[in-house]
C-alpha cells in the first residue's frame, strides 16, 4: 500500500511538468507583451524604457530558457512577484485570498453533501414514486440553471428589492462574524444548488446499484428487517463510490468559484484569477493554474487511496477498481 501511494505521488511529477509546459506555452503564445502589461501603455511608449524592462524581466532570452528559469524558481518555491497588484509576491497574494475560497466552497460542499445524501437515499428506496420523480426532475433543473443567472436574480431580488442581504462582498473579510455571515448566504445558495443536484443523482444510482446486490437479499433472508438491511449493509457500500464522485467534482467546484466570486466580488482565489487574467498578470495566472492543477491531481490520488482503503475489493497493484 505504501509503495503504491509513493508510486502514485512520484507519477505526479511528470504530470506537473507537462502542465507547466502547457500553461507556459499557452500564455506566451498569446498575442501581447508581458512587459507592456506590466508597465502600462504610457510608460511602454518609451522604447528604451521598454527594452530595459524586457531585459529586467528576462524576456529578451529565448523562450525555452525563460521557461527553464521560471521552472527553476518554481521548484524552489519562488512564484515571483505580480506585475500588478502593487507588485506583491505572488504567494502573499494567494495566501490572502486562500481562506476566502476555502470557507465559501467548504460550506457549499458540506451543505451539498448534507442535503443530497438523504435525498438520494430516499429517492432510491422509493424508486419511481412521486418523491423519486420529483428528485430526478429537480436535479435536472438544478444542473440546468446557469449559476451566474441565478446569482444575478438573487442579488436583485433579495439584495436590492427586499434589501435583506448585502449585494456584494467588498470588505466582508474584516467584518465581525455577527455581520459577516450575511455575506455568505447568497453565494452559498448559488454554489450549493448544483452540488445538491450532482450528489443526489449519484447517491441515488449508487444506492440503487447496491439494493440489487445478492448480499442484500442474503441479509434479508437471514431475517433482518428491511430497514436494518438497507442502512446497515446497503448504505455503507453505497457511500464508497461517492468518495470518487466528490473527488472528481473538485475541478468543477474550483471553476465555479471563478464566476461566482466575480459576481459577488468575493475576495477569494477565483476573483484573483479573474482579475489577474484581465490584467494579463502572467506570474499570478501561471501560479494559480499550477497550484489548482496540483491540487486537483493530489486530490485524485488521495481519492484513489481512500477508495482502496475503504473497499477491500480494489487491488492496489494496478490501482483500478475490480
Amino acid at each position, binding site marked *: 500500500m505504501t509503495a503504491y501511494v509513493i508510486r502514485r505521488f512520484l507519477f505526479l511529477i511528470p504530470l506537473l511538468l507537462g502542465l507547466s509546459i502547457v500553461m507556459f506555452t499557452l500564455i506566451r503564445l498569446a*498575442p501581447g507583451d508581458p512587459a507592456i502589461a506590466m508597465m502600462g501603455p504610457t510608460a511602454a511608449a518609451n522604447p528604451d524604457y521598454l527594452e530595459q524592462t524586457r531585459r529586467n524581466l528576462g524576456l529578451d532570452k529565448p523562450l525555452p530558457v525563460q521557461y527553464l528559469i521560471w521552472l527553476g524558481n518554481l521548484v524552489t518555491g519562488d512564484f515571483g512577484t505580480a506585475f500588478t497588484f502593487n507588485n506583491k509576491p505572488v504567494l502573499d497574494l494567494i495566501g490572502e485570498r486562500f481562506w476566502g475560497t476555502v470557507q465559501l466552497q467548504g460550506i457549499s460542499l458540506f451543505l451539498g453533501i448534507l442535503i443530497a445524501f438523504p435525498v438520494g437515499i430516499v429517492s432510491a428506496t422509493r424508486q419511481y414514486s412521486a418523491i423519486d420523480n420529483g428528485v430526478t426532475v429537480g436535479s*435536472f433543473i438544478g444542473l440546468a440553471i*446557469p449559476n451566474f443567472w441565478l446569482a444575478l436574480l438573487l442579488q*436583485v431580488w433579495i439584495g436590492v428589492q427586499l434589501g435583506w442581504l448585502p449585494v456584494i462582498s467588498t470588505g466582508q473579510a474584516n467584518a465581525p462574524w455577527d455581520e459577516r455571515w450575511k455575506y455568505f448566504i447568497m453565494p452559498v445558495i448559488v454554489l450549493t444548488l448544483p452540488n445538491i443536484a450532482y450528489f443526489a443523482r449519484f447517491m441515488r444510482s449508487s444506492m440503487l446499484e447496491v439494493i440489487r446486490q445478492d448480499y442484500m437479499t442474503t441479509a434479508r433472508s437471514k431475517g433482518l428487517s428491511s430497514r436494518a438491511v438497507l442502512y446497515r449493509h446497503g448504505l455503507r457500500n453505497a457511500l464508497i463510490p461517492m468518495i470518487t464522485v466528490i473527488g472528481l467534482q473538485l475541478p468543477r467546484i*474550483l471553476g465555479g468559484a*471563478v*464566476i461566482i466570486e466575480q459576481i459577488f466580488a468575493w475576495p477569494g482565489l477565483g476573483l484573483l484569477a479573474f482579475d489577474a487574467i484581465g490584467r494579463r498578470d502572467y506570474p499570478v*495566472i501561471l501560479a*494559480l493554474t499550477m497550484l489548482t492543477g496540483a491540487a486537483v491531481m493530489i486530490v485524485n490520488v488521495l481519492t484513489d487511496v481512500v477508495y482502496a482503503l475503504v473497499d477491500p475489493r480494489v487491488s492496489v497493484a494496478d490501482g483500478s477498481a475490480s
Partner: protein
Amino acid sequence: MADQSTLARPVASADHWNRVPPQQRFPVIRRFLQNRLAVAGFIIIVLFYAAAFLEPVITTYPYDELLPGMRNTPPSSEHWMGTDRSGRDVYSRLVKGGQVSLAAGFAAVLIVMTIGTTLGALAGFFGGIVDAVIMRFTDILLSIPLILLLITAASLFRPSLQTTIIVIGVSSWPGAARLIRGQFIQLKGQEFVTAARSIGASPLQIMLRHIFPNALAIIIVEATLWLSYAILLEASLSYLGLGVQIPTPSWGNMLQDGQRELLYGAWWLTLFPGLAIFLTVLAFNLMGDGLRDAFDPRHRGR
C-alpha cells in the same frame, strides 16, 4: 456502458427483419419515445432550432435596429419581450441570439467530438505508448478547471464568436476522449474484431468499419450532453464579456448587457435570455439521458 449483446449483433438479414413484428422494430426509437421527459427535451430542441433557422421570418424587427424613443420599454403587444437600453427589440435579439448560441454550441461540439473521438479511438485501439502519451495529456488538461482554462485562453486571444468556438472546442475534448477510449478498449477485445483481423483487415478498416459503428451510440449520447455544456460555457464566457461581442447578440451577452438595467426594474432583459439558456441546457440533458437509456436499457432508472 453500451449493451454489447444488442449493439455488436451481426446485421440482420432482410428475411429476419420481416419476421420481426412491426411493434418490435426500431427498439431504440421506441424506448426513447416512451420516456416522456426525453421527448419533452427533444421537442424543445426542435422548436429552438426551428426558430433559429426561421430567424429572418419570425423576428419582428432587425436585431440591431435602434428604435428611437424606445429605451427599456416593458413587454407589450408591439414588443413581446420589451426593448433593451439601446431601444432594440428583445424578442428579435433573443431569436438572433439563439441562432448564434445554438450554432456556436454545435460548432464547438463538432470540434470536441472530432478531437475526442480521434484521440480516444487511437489511444484505445493501439494502447501502449500511444495510449500513454494521449492519456497523460488528457490528465493534464483535466486537472485545470475548464472555465479557468477557457477564461484564460479567451482573454489572451481577441474575444469573438470564432475565438469562443475554437477555445471551447480545443479545451473540452479530454472528457470525451477518455470515454471513447474506454469504449474502444472494450470493443477491440470482441470476437468480431478478431474475425475482421483474421481476414486481413487493416487497423484503419477495423477502427472505422467495425469498431466505430458500435461505439456510435455512446458518441451520440456524449455529443448531446456536450451540447448542453457548450451552450452553457458560451453563455458564461459571453456573460463575462469574453465571448461573443455586442452588437452580435448571444444569450450570454444579452444577460451581461441587461444586468445593470435590472436595478431600474427592467426584468425582461435578464429573464428571457436566462430562461432560454436554462431551457436549452435542460432539454439537451433530458434528451441525452433519454438516449442513453434507449441505447442501453440496463442503464434505465439509474
